[in-house]
């Protein structure tokens, strides 16, 4: 018979959760607000693009993913009041001007012939960045104090991984000629330059890296 009165440690031997974490309350809230801002721009862009893409399968995937990212924004905003920001809109902000420039460039393509450009921006530049940033957050933040953010990010990451895979498969099925290969890489290159300047989706130090002073920001090459 198990003796329930015998003292046991609060943490089982296999439970390695630890204190403290990399982020204080403010920093976790700032990051969550920056993620929410970008998820919002993303779902709006996906929604707007649905009418502009002629490929029926792409149209339907955009419709599905549009909701995923809107739901992500909602989940992230729900976390903000728990991080001392009672007005979620006040912290739902871009990390910096660079991210605003990146989002504007991401959303820009409109013409029906630009499906590759639209998808490359989302699936080859942005989603790899959100996956990286969310992973860094949940690996770095305190697994005890910031557990609600970790739980939310894990739900989001499941969508991000699946959506990224689906988008990448669409792109592989659309990119067939040397000219299309060129278009896809040019598009990735120009957006990559903007997000490198921004430092990532949460700004400088998105992945905890040292903050490089960029000598010439337009070149987007760290010193």
């Amino acid at each position, binding site marked *: 018979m198990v003796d329930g009165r015998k003292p046991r440690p609060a943490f089982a031997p296999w439970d390695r959760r630890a204190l403290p974490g990399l982020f204080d309350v403010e920093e976790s809230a700032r990051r969550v607000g920056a993620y929410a801002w970008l998820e919002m721009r993303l779902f709006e862009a996906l929604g707007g693009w649905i009418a502009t893409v002629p490929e029926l399968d792409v149209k339907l995937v955009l419709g599905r993913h*549009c909701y995923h990212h809107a739901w992500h924004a909602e989940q992230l905003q729900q976390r903000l009041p728990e991080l001392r920001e009672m007005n979620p809109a006040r912290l739902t902000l871009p990390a910096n001007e660079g991210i605003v420039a990146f989002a504007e460039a991401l959303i820009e393509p409109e013409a029906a012939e630009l499906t590759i450009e639209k998808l490359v921006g989302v699936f080859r530049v942005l989603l790899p960045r959100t996956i990286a940033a969310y992973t860094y957050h949940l690996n770095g933040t305190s697994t005890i104090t910031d557990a609600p953010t970790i739980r939310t990010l894990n739900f989001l990451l499941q969508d991000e991984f699946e959506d990224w895979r689906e988008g990448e498969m669409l792109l592989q099925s659309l990119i067939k000629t040397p000219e299309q290969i060129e278009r896809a890489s040019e598009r990735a290159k120009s957006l990559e330059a903007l997000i490198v300047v921004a430092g990532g989706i949460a700004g400088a130090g998105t992945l905890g890296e040292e903050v490089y002073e960029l000598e010439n920001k337009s070149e987007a090459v760290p010193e």
Partner: protein
Amino acid sequence: MKRFLPVEELARDERFIRSDLAEGFSDPRNGRVRDRTISTARLQPDRAAAPDRARSLMHGIFVGEIQALEAAGRTTFDFDDTEAPFALKLDMARQCWDESRHVEISVKLGEHMGTEIGEYTEATFLYEAACVTDPAMRLAGVNRALEGLAIDVFNTMKDFGQASGDPVLKFCEDWMLADEVTHVKMGSDWLRRLTERDPERRERALEFQRAVDKLFSLGGFRGETDESPIQIARRFRELAGFDTKEIDEIAGLAAESIAETRALLGKTG
């Protein structure tokens, strides 16, 4: 990407051919056909034309679902946060996912019924109603008038699936019907919230809704008698936030329109 994408710029592959809805409705042969018809205009499986009519209607549903998807998508993008709050856009994003599934269902149902994409033409009235620049009007015209029509159409098709012994058709229509009730309810809720302090704006939006409703009552296309192929689904409309007076009004439009068509054809009721 610019805000407000005109209907001419809707992107389609080469299978899709556009047609003008008004042309179809104003075709005087429709009235004569109805007059000549010796029994009901309803979709009934024992009529020789029923399979063809159902396939044509199904294709109409398919292109309507694409436009509903596009319209909801544009509403997430066309307005800033002051014109359309995040919660509204979140509802529209959810609707995008639902309409995506409806397109998928419609493609599979079309195959099931023996129809190909592009076999019939596409009228773009749904998206056209989504081109208005006031979100309250857009929700009234699209989510209340046109998604309301979708409730009537799906319920009619569901009954046809039941009557013709097609469980796949009945199953699919019932699932889509459940989603459409939600979409109409979103329209009812947001119309109320957006125009809470602006009765004139609400009246303009409702006026637009009535104009769209009237278009689909033309020639008695949708009504409550044997003369209408599409039957008004009162119970589901109530679930979606329509009151009895509003439903009576829609039924009245159909009766009026049938009388007008008869007068145009120089006949008496």
